[in-house]
């Protein structure tokens, strides 16, 4: 399985980034080959539609799973259209989350937050 995670720095000691769409980097970790790849997130500086562009990057990188603390509805739309499952991260450690995922301890992310232009409760 190719697991993608938004991360703050390009190394395995990095913390998981709090933002999915505007994270500086992604880690793509292959649970079979145990290889790691860090990629830049070119969507981070987009004026708009960052989540969409970020999700597209991961779709094109053939991610199977995304582990993230949160995810917006536009990004989720793209990921789900590509049959990518979204898991909620537990804590900010990369290794901790990979281990948790592999041992089936992570939950699916079910609180998808609204996109930038729409607010909850008709606000």
């Amino acid at each position, binding site marked *: 399985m190719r697991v993608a995670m938004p991360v703050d720095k390009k190394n395995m000691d990095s913390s998981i980034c709090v933002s999915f769409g505007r994270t500086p980097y992604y880690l793509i970790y292959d649970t079979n080959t145990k290889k790691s790849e860090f990629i830049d997130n070119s969507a981070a500086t*987009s004026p708009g539609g960052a989540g969409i562009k970020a*999700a*597209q990057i991961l779709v094109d990188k053939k991610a199977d799973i995304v582990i993230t603390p949160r995810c917006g509805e536009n990004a989720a739309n793209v990921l789900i*259209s590509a049959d990518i499952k979204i898991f909620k991260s537990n804590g900010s450690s990369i290794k901790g989350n990979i281990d948790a995922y592999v041992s089936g301890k992570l939950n699916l992310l079910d609180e998808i937050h609204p996109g930038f232009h*729409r607010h909850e409760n*008709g606000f």
Partner: protein
Amino acid sequence: MRIAVLSGKGGAGKTLLCVNLAVVAKKSTYIDCDVEEPNGHLFFKPPITKEKEISIKIPEVDKEICNGCRKCVEFCNYNALAYAKDKVIVFDEICHSCGGCMILCPEKAISERDKVIGKIKVGSFEEVMVLTGILNTGEVSGIPIINELLLENRPDKNRTIFIDCPPGSSCSVMESIKDADYCILVAEPTLFGVHNLNMVYELVKLFNKPFGAVLNKCLDVENPAEEFCAENDIKILGRIPFDKELGILNSNAKIAVRESKEYAKQFSSLLDIIFMEARNEAATNT
């Protein structure tokens, strides 16, 4: 003559000014460009004679013709398109309707469909023609509606057009003032008010529009807005005193110049000054 009334912050008195000036001007048109929350109509309560839906174009991809080249996805500057599992996904609310993807598609798989984003209502109050723009909740931009509102009303020698602008100094405000002959900046007598006055002051200078200021809610104390105008050589067209009576009328959606002879006189004099200033500016600019 097209007169736009703007202020950096909401609640400064744009609608108060626009509505009352339009009424004393008699043969006039009032255009509510604050399409996210139009409020002029609350005062006029105009019977509606015409309604028009406003729509924008959103791309639609024919899955049968699309070959997955993704040129549209790479092209879209707004990231409104994505591609997954052999299908292009279109994000309506992100799309800015530029039409580029449709032009670019090598297979001609993209067509346009209409998406209604709001409407325009036309009515009248006495001799005032009242145009209201309404943006549907959740839509991204009111600019297509503002555009249509201003097109609806070409300059007419016999009618003065009063444009009630949205608050702030963003794209919607720029669209509202772009064809104005004269701009009135409404200011509150507070530091925060002055900070916002400065934003619209910068905007009208950038757009090279002749302008003047009206100070609203004036009290018998030091007025930071007055100081700002003095420092920057901004012509003060008039000062509306802070008056509880006026506040009550306004809150009850009453047109002040119709309820009070005193206000009818005040706004009439203000209108005369505005006309004089605006005509002077027009003369010096030609």
